């Protein structure tokens, strides 16, 4: 009997506080697996955001720093500039990265900081109880868009990957989803690549992961995956927006 799948050493044994079926757990696992497979657990330093994944510092089995809301890329910059031989990554939600932390992520990309960012886009502020995010879809009801998000007053949802791909320093930008086993596997490949790029010293790499928030979307976890497919994945197309080669030839 060969073990096909078992818990990665990249995560600690602490049980997560995530709601049932929240795909933050899957994404954590992928990051943990990638770190284990690349053999970089001993030299990795993760930066946790403020958001549901704030407690990520208890879950990743490597050194961790808990950043202020939105500032993870700045914190990661501070670490990586001092320890260029370590592996530094941020794990951030959409409120964290696409709202309050916009300047920090844009300028980490601008400087082409040699870090890896995992951007978990669940189109809502999970931790604080389901307020609207810049990535919330039109018509989506949240506690601060109780009549459904309205483009006239709040604009069209921002597409961070598309935007960041325009920043000259962004080496690798890819959007994935964790809605199905196949896509989970693809997501892992993208995450792995994003870490490899750092290991090769090639600069800033970000993977946007479309994720669910069953609790604040107000649906059960399985339905949430369907909603992700039918709505998020339509507005936010999966794919690579920027890759190393492209940058080389630019």
């Amino acid at each position, binding site marked *: *009997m060969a073990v096909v*799948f078992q818990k990665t050493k990249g*995560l600690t044994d602490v049980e997560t506080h995530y709601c*049932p*079926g929240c795909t933050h757990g899957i994404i954590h696992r992928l990051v943990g697996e990638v770190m284990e497979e690349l053999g970089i657990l001993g030299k990795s330093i993760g930066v946790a955001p403020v958001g549901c994944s704030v407690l990520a510092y208890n879950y990743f089995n490597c050194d961790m720093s808990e950043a202020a809301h939105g500032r993870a890329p700045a914190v990661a910059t501070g670490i990586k500039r001092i320890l260029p031989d370590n592996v530094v990554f941020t794990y951030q939600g959409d409120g964290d990265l696409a709202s309050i932390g916009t300047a920090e992520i844009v300028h980490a990309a601008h400087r082409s900081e040699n870090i890896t960012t995992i951007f978990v886009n669940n189109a809502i502020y999970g931790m604080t109880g389901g307020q609207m995010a810049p990535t919330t879809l039109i018509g989506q009801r949240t506690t601060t868009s109780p009549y459904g998000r309205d483009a006239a007053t709040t604009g069209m949802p921002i597409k961070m990957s598309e935007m960041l791909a325009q920043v000259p320093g962004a080496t690798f930008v890819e959007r994935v989803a964790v809605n199905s086993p196949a896509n*989970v596997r693809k997501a892992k490949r993208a995450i792995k690549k994003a870490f490899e790029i750092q290991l090769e010293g090639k600069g800033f790499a970000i993977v946007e992961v479309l994720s669910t928030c069953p609790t604040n979307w107000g649906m059960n976890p399985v339905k949430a995956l369907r909603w992700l497919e039918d709505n998020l994945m339509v507005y936010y197309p999966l794919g690579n927006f920027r890759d190393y080669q492209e940058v080389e030839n630019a």
Partner: protein
Amino acid sequence: MAKGTVTFKQDLCKGCGLCVSVCPTNILAMDDKAINRKGYHPATVVDPDNCIGCANCAMMCPDLVITVERN
């Protein structure tokens, strides 16, 4: 078909049902009878013999409940 074995650490399960929804052979189900120490109905393997060891369930489990082995 390959033969697989899945093991569920049921105490870790949050009863989300994601594993059940992706098992190609439909051998998983939520155990409505049991309540684990977390207070959830855990997922369980109804028909272990038909597991093909594809690890789809493990791939989707957010809570590291599942181990998959294959001959």
